[in-house]
């Protein structure tokens, strides 16, 4: 019987299967950042062990860094201490660090692909759930906890039970104004925030093949938001074209050799999946979330569900709680609602293509004066590219400041927060209570829908602004 791409890669990395237990899985690349690594470093030191393969680790500072004045010392003392701890640990243990001020610095899931560290056929882990992003290159990539970070430090392996594999096929072409973020928000709304728990998800079909690497990353990124361990897309010519010539990508003869291996990475025609879903791309509208988990999403022209659509009493209670938090009524439509904040950034949508999409919409126009903005590139390299393409001028002329690279308002950990009670149209990946700051009301959207809100100050159907 044929194998799925997931099985092909997984099987190549199993060092051992523990009887009645998990597999010991070998990890090719380990990415670390300041927030989830300090306890792992101190753990390994406490055991008197050394890092097993420090050369297979790359570090950056992203979660807990300011997005202005990065050349100055970090003013929040706790944040500064955490970032300094990372610097010290990397130095002590021989780990390559792209810290603040380094041209390679940025959100860990943006820089991995951008530098060519992320490659097809690899296993990649990071102490961050959105590690699923890297699956867009045909790798098995997933988030781990700090104990597991310590495991990889100690042995370059993690213990994992093999997940089931689901395939989501998306066929056909997208409507004008609909982009990859809408695809993934649509899928999560369809199968719920826990609908893929226990699974690894392969995305396939003509609509996926037609996407750029940036767009594929957006989809894999949010796999975790439906409970999946990760997402994966088989590599193809789009993947190789993106990778070629990147600093850590294989070069010369080695490139050709790797390419031959990569071309074997696809699900065989007779491979069996534990579950399959088929989606028609043209059914997808621009999407927006109305609630407090990413599964609570709808078409931007749709209406918030009503109570009678829910039967389970606990679910009813949760639904009411979410609407109360969001300040919304059951059955209401969202179109035309005023928004106070727009955040364009995060590992979901902070790549060059995202800024091109937004610039294209706002070009020659002014942002709505009532909207506060946080426009944050995912990496130093993206920031540089924005300048090189002259997009920064489009933003400045629209009255918008572009920040420096980092996670920013995605998680309410650094200084960029959304005030309590205010709405934020956000290209990030989580709309949990308080995620963007205590009391902040997050609505997840695509960069296009965010651009529309920038101009109108309201929730807007981007399709009405395109010709």
């Amino acid at each position, binding site marked *: 019987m044929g194998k799925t791409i997931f099985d092909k890669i997984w099987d190549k990395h199993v060092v051992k299967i523990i009887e009645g237990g998990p597999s010991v899985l070998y990890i090719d690349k380990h990415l670390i950042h300041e927030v989830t690594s300090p306890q792992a470093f101190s753990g390994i030191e406490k055991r008197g062990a050394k890092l097993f393969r420090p050369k297979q680790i790359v570090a950056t500072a992203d979660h807990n860094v300011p997005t202005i004045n990065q050349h100055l010392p970090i003013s929040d003392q706790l944040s500064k201490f955490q970032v300094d701890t990372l610097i010290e640990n990397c130095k002590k243990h021989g780990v390559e660090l792209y810290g603040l001020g380094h041209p390679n610095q940025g959100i860990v899931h943006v820089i991995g692909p951008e530098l060519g560290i992320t490659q097809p056929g690899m296993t990649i882990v990071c102490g961050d759930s959105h590690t699923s992003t890297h699956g867009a290159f045909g790798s098995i990539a997933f988030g781990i906890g700090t104990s597991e970070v310590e495991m990889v430090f100690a042995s370059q392996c993690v213990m994992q039970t093999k997940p089931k594999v689901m395939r989501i096929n998306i066929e056909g072409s997208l409507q004008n104004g609909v982009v990859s973020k809408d695809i993934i928000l649509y899928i999560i709304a369809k199968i719920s*925030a826990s609908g893929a728990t226990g699974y690894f998800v392969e995305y396939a079909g003509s609509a996926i093949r037609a996407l750029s690497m940036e767009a594929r990353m957006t989809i894999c990124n949010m796999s975790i938001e439906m409970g999946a361990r990760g997402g994966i897309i088989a590599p193809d010519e789009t993947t190789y074209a993106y990778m070629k010539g990147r600093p850590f990508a294989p070069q010369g003869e080695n490139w050709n050799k790797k390419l031959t291996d990569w071309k074997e990475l696809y699900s065989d025609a007779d491979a069996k999946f534990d579950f399959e879903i088929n989606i028609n791309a043209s059914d997808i509208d621009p999407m927006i979330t109305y609630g407090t988990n990413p599964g609570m999403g709808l078409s931007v022209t749709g209406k918030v569900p009503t109570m009678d659509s829910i039967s389970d009493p606990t679910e009813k*209670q949760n639904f009411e709680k979410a609407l109360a938090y969001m300040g919304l009524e059951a059955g209401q439509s969202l179109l035309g609602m005023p928004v106070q904040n727009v955040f364009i950034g995060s590992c979901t949508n902070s790549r060059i293509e995202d800024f091109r999409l937004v610039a294209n919409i706002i070009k020659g126009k002014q942002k709505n004066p009532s909207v506060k903005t946080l426009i944050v590139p995912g990496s130093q390299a993206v920031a540089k590219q924005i300048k090189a393409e002259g997009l920064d001028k489009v933003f400045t002329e629209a009255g918008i400041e572009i920040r420096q690279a980092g996670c920013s308002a995605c998680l309410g950990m650094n200084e960029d927060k959304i005030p309590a009670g205010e709405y934020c149209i956000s290209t990030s990946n989580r709309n949990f209570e308080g995620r963007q700051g205590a009391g902040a009301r997050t609505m997840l959207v695509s960069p296009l829908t965010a651009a529309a809100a920038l101009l109108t100050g309201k929730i807007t159907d981007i399709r009405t602004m395109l010709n």
Partner: protein
Amino acid sequence: MQSLQKIKSRFIPLRIENVDTDQIIPARFLKATTKEGFGKNLFRDWRYENDDETKPKADFVLNQKQFSGEILVAAKNFGCGSSREHAAWSIQDYGFKVVVSSFFADIFKNNALNNGVLPVTVSDAFLQAIFAEGADATLSIDLEKQIITIDSTGASESFEINAYKKTCMLNGYDDIDYLLSMKEEIEQFELNHNK
């Protein structure tokens, strides 16, 4: 890691679905570089008005004096969202040894097991039966037999845990000890893998 064999305790009922790790421990508390002391910030924004410890929210279960115990019982899809292990640390630091739910998010389940907190998955019906009990009711959990019992009614259900994790938990040793002992095997594997 602490070992766990049997436990009998009252429990705290958290009737909320999709409890994500941002609620368990909000991001602003992730600036620490050690594992200790997270318990006092567990469910911080559900527990206090305006982040003020002098203003506990009366409607949140951790603030309701009638409830206590080393077992947390939560509605389905507990621990979804961010992979932060701080969530497991805060639950453990607060004093919970077991979390019961009808569904756990994958990463949280792993993190809990790696920190000596036992996730017990029960059926929806059994979860409702637990929620129907009063504040004085107790639950008994026997890890060896993999059985959870509502003591007042004697209703019980068996739960799954993989054999390896069970042994770790019963004996209080962890994956890292195991992996460190595999060093030679891993080096051997690398010889082929990196060719």
